[in-house]
Each structure stands twice: as C-alpha cells, then as structure tokens.
C-alpha cells in the first residue's frame, strides 16, 4: 500500500471509531465539547505517531510472545515522558491538553495500531498510519462533540450558535447521550456504506 492510502484510510474507510470501534472510552468521555475533542484528538495523534515509530523500530528485537507487555511499557513510558516534558517546558499547552494525556495510555487505538499495523510495517508507513488514524480519530471525535456541544450546551467551540431561547438538551452531555449520539452516527455510517 502506498503512503497516501495509508494516510487516508483512517479517515473514512477504516475510521478507528465508527468502523474499527477502537478507543471508545476516550471518545465517550471527552466528546462533550469540541475544544476537548480537538485537544484529545491532537494529543492522541501525536502519541500515536510517536508510538508507531517506536514500535516499528523495535519490531525486530521484540520477541513475539511478549510483544503486548513490551508495547504497554513503551507506550506508557512514552506518554509519561511527553506529559512531564510538556508540563515543564510548555506549561500553557499542558494546561489545555494535560487532562487528556494520562487518558491516552488507556486509548486502545494506540495499542491497537501497534499490534495491527506498526509491528508489521516499516517506519514510513507506520508514520502514515499513525497520522491517518489520528486524523480519523480527531475527526470522528469532533463530529460527536459537535453534536453533543451544540445540542447540550448551545455552543460550538464555546461560541454561541443556538438562539437564546434554546433550552439545552443536557442529556447529550451525559454518558447516555454519548452512547446515543455515537450509536446514531455509527448507524448513519453503516447506512452510507450499504448504499454504496
């Protein structure tokens, strides 16, 4: 597969959230506002690209039987390093993204891509995969968050978009709302796919 197709597959065809259904926890938890979604998406993309590079680099020295614990160690260590460095040298950015960084450790997309892609492919393709998946994740998260924020808070990226008479539908900000929104979006994706 070419670099470009690796890059774009994550956006629609193999979208990590709507199609592969990976990384549901952060999706449900951080899609309450668009700014959170973008923050989480960017942080996850960054970590994903880096972890893909690492995993791809060490794929030849990792014994097959213990690859999962190795990935966990690598990813956890990496995330912690990013977290600490950011807090020390980029405090402003850490303030807005810091909340999501510990969450990334439990993001299945990172481990999932390491297992499904990076340990079988070279570094270049792994970077493409990381960026593509990260973009797909960010995009999907933003879509979910857009619906939730607009309906639940009447705003989009903290800008008021609904008329002042609008009574926000609080449930979309709560956990059930996250599930319902995600469910409807997945149904929509499936419908589009079936039509094709």
């Amino acid at each position, binding site marked *: 597969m070419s670099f470009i197709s690796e890059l774009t597959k994550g956006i629609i065809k193999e979208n990590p959230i709507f199609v592969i259904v990976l990384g549901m926890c952060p999706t449900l938890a*951080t899609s*309450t*506002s668009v700014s*959170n979604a973008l923050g989480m998406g960017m942080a996850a993309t960054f970590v994903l690209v880096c972890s893909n590079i690492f995993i791809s680099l060490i794929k030849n020295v990792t*014994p097959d*039987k*213990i690859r999962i*614990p*190795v990935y966990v*160690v*690598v990813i*956890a*260590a990496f995330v*912690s*390093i990013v977290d*600490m*460095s950011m*807090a*020390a*040298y980029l*405090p402003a950015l850490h303030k807005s993204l810091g*909340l999501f960084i510990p969450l990334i450790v439990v993001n299945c997309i990172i481990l999932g891509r390491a297992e499904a892609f990076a340990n079988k492919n070279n570094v270049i393709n792994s970077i493409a995969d990381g960026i593509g998946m990260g973009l797909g994740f960010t995009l999907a998260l933003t879509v979910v968050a857009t619906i*939730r*924020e607009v309906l*639940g*808070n009447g705003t989009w990226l903290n800008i008021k978009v609904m008329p002042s008479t609008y009574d926000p539908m*609080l449930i979309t*900000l*709560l956990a059930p709302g996250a599930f319902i929104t995600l469910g409807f979006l997945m149904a929509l994706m499936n419908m589009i796919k079936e039509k094709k």
Partner: protein
Amino acid sequence: MKMFLKLGLTLLAFCMVATALLAYVNSLTKPKIEAIKIKEAQEAREMLIPDAEFEEVHGAIDYYIARDKTTKALKGYTFTAEKAGYSGAVKTMAAVDSSLTIINIKVVQQTETPGLGTNSTKPEFAAQFSGKNASQLIVDKDGGVAPNCIKALTGATITTRAVTNALKEYIDILSQEINGKGEAK
C-alpha cells in the same frame, strides 16, 4: 525453561530502559514543574486577595495569612479546600476576610463531567460565593432558600455540594484554628 528466562530478561531489559528514561526525564522536569505550581498558586492567591503578602501556616489545615503589603494589616486568609466530587477530588482555593466571610473563590482542580461539573470553574459560579459566611453555605437542593444559599449548577448538584461543603468545613476548622490560637496566646 530457558525460553521463559530469555523472554523474562528481554522484558526486564525493556522495563529497565523505560524506567531509566523516565527517571532521567523526571529529574530534569520535576523542579521546573514544582516551580510552575508554586508560582501558579501564588498568582492565584494574589488574584483572590490583591496587594497582599502571604504567610504560610501549618495547622489542622494548611492556610495562608494575608497581610497588606504596606500597612501589614490583616486582610484575611486563603486556603485550598478539597472534597470528593462526582468523579474525583475537587480543589477549591478560597479567600476569606478577617471575619471569615468569603471574598472570592476559584476551583483550581477538578475532573468533573465536561459541560456540567466543569461549569464550576466559571466565574458566574464563583461569584455567588462572594460575601457568604459559613452558615449560608448550603445548596438550594439541600433545603437552602434563596438568596442565602448556593444555587446548584444544572445537572451537577454533586459538584456544587463538593465545593460548598468543602468550603464550609474548612472555614469551620479555620475559625477554630484562629480562635484557638487567639486563646492560647
């Protein structure tokens, strides 16, 4: 057997490298992070009580005595109250004047539901605490009657309770601390 040993050792090697790296990065960043935290706390205190210098006191709770920079007159106290909210601890920094009436508060750390509990960090929420004393710190849903109560955030009564009750508790302790010291002296 040999295989297990080999695998175990490989994993150990990975872990050791990772640990070493983490330790190294930690040693580099920790002082910087601490410094940033202290600076932030200082800035927060100064925002709550401007033009004051602070003296740290360790007692039943840790608090700061704020005195006017020039006159050295007692301006009040600041402290950070903490109580479990909906999903984890909610830390609120508060400033009270010498009669223990709240001057201002700021929720400094929380992991509440975005869009609901996180509204506690908004200035509109903080504003309703100003001018209230300990006995008025009661959430409307708990039987408080307006205007002498705290209006719960929509959909986040638990967060509101955490903030309100934490403040009430700490002010009560603080008043004992101060009065107790006064008697002792």
